[in-house]
């Protein structure tokens, strides 16, 4: 019983870590990127300050908006945090990961996106609609690719439960699976699209014709905007943690001992930092593409994931 | 059949009459004037009546005498007379059918006779040559009657063709089976008579509505593209 309780507490702690660590990861990413671009860049804690400032600010609601506009930040935040609770960050076998498997995780993202898009449309401006339209389009292409990657993983691990899957990968030792290589590449591309990074979207821009995510939250202010931003950061971190822990699971805590947990935390911090740095490099090298190039981009991701699946079916299992 | 054994002459005569009936059908095919057509038709009726009488005499079926008399009056006199009157009344005395396809039709008619024999061949294997021939002839007359109807444009000619079909099957009934039961025969005769009268009525209606008796002009009701 005590063990049971410990695990629940641990799960909550891990979730809190997710929530708390997400701005830090965003700050790190921004900083690395600035450095790469020969700029000084803000401090690592800058995102926290931004959030705090937003929380303090007065809330402005656009005229004609409905309760959907007001409810959306909370729904989105709730869904994303719940998603964070499911993803193993530092330890496996946490009870929360059994609440939902990876498909449900995708479902949480979809729910958040659904409300985000609705909120964008609620105001009645052209921007909101435009953002919603683009977001849903990109997402509808990204989601099958994402699931294809997930399926590759799930089929080779024989489960869709993230915790169990990572455990199985861990226990099988270092095996180079072609399917995983393809799936990793595909997943990277999808993650870029899903989290609204270059080259699909640019979180830094407010150029009306190019933005996707920013167009939807254009009318948000104050604490609503803070929640939205925070949720986006958590989502980014979830993707990063997913990629890091699935494809490079080493270091993650299998038991609940203090040492193991500490090691897990350190390992994941390093992995996330590296991953963010990698993204910063790619964002520096690449330019944002046209909206209608995104389908090709995501189609390529889908193709990679499909190849991963096929190579799993053909190369790894045998006809 | 037994009754016929000793009456060679009658049988020959009947066969001769059969040939004549067949010939009259051909004569109708050849005849292009309406008046002439009706006249040949009358002769066919008379031949039929004679045949009936002869069969009655030969077979001893007395009711056939009555039938012969009936036939004579109905088909030899009354119906031709009705038709003739119609022709006169409709002013068609000098009307002629077109002569196109006359020869092919005649040749087709000859073919039909052969066909009739071919069809009748297996039918009466058990029967005597005589019966087979009469069946074949009557079949030929029926088919020739239809050919006449198909090849003629005038309503009157079609009626004549129709009546000659009746003649053909009547011939079969008389010669092959010594007539039908009396009640049937009376019924048939009644129907034929009514039909003849009705034909007259319809002639007048056609005439009133389309001003001609050319059946090719009766083509308003069709399904093909206009």
């Amino acid at each position, binding site marked *: 019983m005590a063990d049971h309780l410990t695990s629940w507490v641990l799960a909550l702690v891990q979730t809190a870590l997710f929530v708390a660590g997400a701005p830090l990861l965003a700050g790190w990413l921004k900083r690395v990127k600035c450095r790469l671009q020969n700029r000084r860049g803000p401090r690592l804690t800058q995102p926290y300050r931004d959030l705090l400032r937003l929380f303090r600010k007065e809330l402005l609601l656009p005229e004609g908006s409905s309760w959907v506009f007001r409810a959306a930040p909370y729904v989105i935040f709730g869904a994303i945090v719940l998603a964070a609770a499911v993803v193993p960050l530092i330890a496996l076998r946490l009870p929360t990961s059994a*609440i939902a498997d990876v498909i449900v995780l995708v479902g949480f993202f979809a729910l958040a996106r659904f409300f985000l898009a609705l909120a*964008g449309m609620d105001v009645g401006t*052209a921007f909101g609609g435009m953002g919603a339209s683009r977001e849903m389009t990109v997402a509808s292409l990204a989601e099958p690719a994402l699931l294809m990657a997930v399926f590759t993983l799930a089929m080779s691990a024989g489960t869709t439960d993230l915790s169990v899957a990572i455990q199985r990968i861990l226990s099988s030792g270092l095996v180079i699976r072609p399917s995983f290589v393809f799936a990793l590449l595909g997943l990277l591309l999808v993650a870029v699209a899903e989290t609204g990074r270059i080259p699909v979207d640019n979180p830094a821009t407010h150029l009306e014709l190019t933005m996707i995510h920013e167009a939807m939250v254009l009318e948000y202010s104050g604490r609503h905007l803070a929640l939205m931003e925070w949720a986006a950061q958590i989502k980014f971190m979830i993707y990063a943690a997913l990629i890091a822990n699935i494809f490079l699971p080493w270091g993650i805590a299998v038991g609940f001992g203090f040492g193991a947990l500490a090691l897990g935390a350190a390992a994941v911090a390093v992995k996330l930092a590296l991953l963010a740095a990698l993204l910063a490099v790619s964002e520096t090298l690449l330019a944002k593409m046209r909206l209608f190039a995104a389908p090709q981009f995501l189609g390529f991701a889908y193709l990679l994931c499909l190849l991963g699946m096929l190579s799993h079916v053909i190369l790894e299992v045998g006809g | 059949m037994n009754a016929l054994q000793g009456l060679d002459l009658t049988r020959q005569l009947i066969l001769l009459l059969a040939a004549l009936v067949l010939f009259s059908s051909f004569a109708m095919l050849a005849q292009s004037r309406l008046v002439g057509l009706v006249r040949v038709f009358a002769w066919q009726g008379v031949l039929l009546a004679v045949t009936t009488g002869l069969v009655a005499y030969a077979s001893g079926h007395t009711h056939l005498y009555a039938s012969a008399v009936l036939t004579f009056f109905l088909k030899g006199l009354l119906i031709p007379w009705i038709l003739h009157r119609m022709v006169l009344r409709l002013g068609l005395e000098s009307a002629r059918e077109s002569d196109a396809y006359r020869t092919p039709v005649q040749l087709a008619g000859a073919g039909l006779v052969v066909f009739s024999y071919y069809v009748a061949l297996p039918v009466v294997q058990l029967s005597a040559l005589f019966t087979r021939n009469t069946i074949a002839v009557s079949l030929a007359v029926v088919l020739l009657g239809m050919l006449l109807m198909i090849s003629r444009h005038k309503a009157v000619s079609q009626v004549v063709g129709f009546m000659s079909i009746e003649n053909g099957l009547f011939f079969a009934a008389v010669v092959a089976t010594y007539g039908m039961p009396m009640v049937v025969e009376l019924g048939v005769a009644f129907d034929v008579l009514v039909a003849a009268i009705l034909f007259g009525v319809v002639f007048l209606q056609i005439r009133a509505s389309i001003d001609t008796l050319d059946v090719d002009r009766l083509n308003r009701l069709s399904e093909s593209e206009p």
Partner: protein
Amino acid sequence: MSLSLALWAVLGALASGLLGLAADRFPAPAKAAVFALLGLSGLGAVLGGGDALLRGLTTAQTFPLGLPWLHWHLCLDPLSGFFLIVIGIATVAVSVYGPGYVREYEHGRQSTVPLYLFTGIFVSGMQLVVLAADAFSFMVAWELMSLSSYFLVAYQHQHAANRRAAFLYLLMAEVGGLAILLAFGVLAAFGGGFSFAAMRAAALGPGWASVAFVFALFGFGMKAGLVPLHAWLPEAHPVAPSHVSALMSGVMLKVALYGLIRFTFDLLGGPHWDWGLVLLLAGSASALLGVLYALMQHDLKRLLAYHSVENVGIICMGLGLAMIFAGTGHPRLAVLGLIAALYHTLNHSLFKGLLFLGAGAVLQRSHEGDLERMGGLIGRMPVTALFFLIGCISISALPPFNGFVSEWLTFQAALQAPALHSGVLRALIPVTAAALALTGALAAACFVKVFGVAFLGRARSRHVRHAREVDLGMRAGQGLLAALCLVFGVLPTYTVQALEPIAHQLLGRGLPSASAQGWLWLTPVSPQTASYAAPLVLAGMVLFGGVMFALLNARRRTRRVRRTIPWACGFGPLDARMQYTSTAFTHPIRRIFRPVWEIHEEVETGGDRGLRPAALRHRLHVEDRSWRVLYEPVGRWVAVAARQVGRIQTGSVRTYLAYSFLTLVVLLWLIT
């Protein structure tokens, strides 16, 4: 007991229809009685079906109707019990919703008699279909259902489009019915009788069984709206009165699926895996094309009808998986696929019914069916909007509502593909699962569009601006379904348990693993493979979102908010015409999936003023390709054949005589 309850339900619906005959003379009492009886009938169906389903009972009875040697066999077993529940729930909701909705027709120019009469017959026909236990009564009930719903489609026949839709609908129903008849005929020929019992006993070779399956798939698939036989569906379903659309789209399609399940799993005996593959592929195609076509619609009810095509596709994917697994000797996994399909069947009937009722409410209040003329309804019809939003979330398969659970189960079934021997199947099934994912994402996009354009933003037309909330009954009808959407989304373990008797009946085993971990955890295969704790998901979301909300809104100072004018690029005050329209919303998708539709687009610039045209006109027609590919050629062939045949009737009596003559000659020649 349960069967007699179900029979009372059938009779109740029939009586409701017959009472409707008095509607011209006594409008008010007739209406009350009609809907009361309909509701009772639905209740009876739910109770009778529930009894049969939960207790796993099979009761049969014969009725001295039908042919002298083949009386009507009626039978209530878990499968039909389940579908009775599906029918019953929707009927109850409609009977609550109906009285308010038909008010619109009461003072119209057409009598409400046909509406009441055929609604009653329609419902009783559907109930009878699932009860029928011989081919004859099945066909009678089936066609009764088709015919009465046809009259409902044609109810508002003053519009030419409705007449066309009704014609097309009946034509398809007829063709489909004939195919079903043929399928039964094959079975009956081998089984020696038309009762289902005799058909089950039929010993068919695989060839004939496949023939029967193909006919059944064609017939039932046509009714269910499987691509490419679906084209009638989006024409017909929307033009019926909305509560009937809810029944047609929500329930009647399910009855078609019932037929398919009954035929393939029960009557034909063990399904072959290759049929499953066919069904899986057809289902994927339906799901994907259905949602893509739906995206391009801007008529609300039509859009919903296309979504029915999509959802039927999803259900068929589950069924196809079940057949593949059953045919390759994996009954446990087959059960999973079957239960996923049945679960989605139930769910679709709930949320599609809900959405159609919502659309009806909007239609009644605003007299607008076109999304492009709606907008901002959430402020005017808040309750309807909330329920509609629940429907949208459910149909978009988002947790924690019901649509998600069944799609999740379908995914789980698909992910068990590695158990199969054939590498092709192993590779193909995940691809179809990815198609399902695409479908789900597109559906979400579509319903963002629907809800965003119709209910959010600003009103685009005067009627919509003056819309008011609907009456209590109509709200209650929607509320019932919305609540059930949540209940079935949050309590999947119970639902799956309740569905198990069907699996026992059809596949000989249940799915004990699904609820092995207690009611909280749905673990369809094993807890190690996948688990989903819907109640915890709901709780978690309420917790995290709620805590945040409480934290942030606790202080009085923060509760005050200021309203400001939204940013419109400085073009002065915001205008309803500045909003994104439905067509604009789907423009990126239209560009990406261009080859799927037949798109006729033209842009006219008028008022030649060089670079600044005074008028701009944009015309867009997005058409279903199946018309061009499938339907029009058939129509053309018939027309050509008719024209050719028409030639024989020249009008000349001499030609006719020649026919007679030649017939005679040929026959004479033939027999000698």
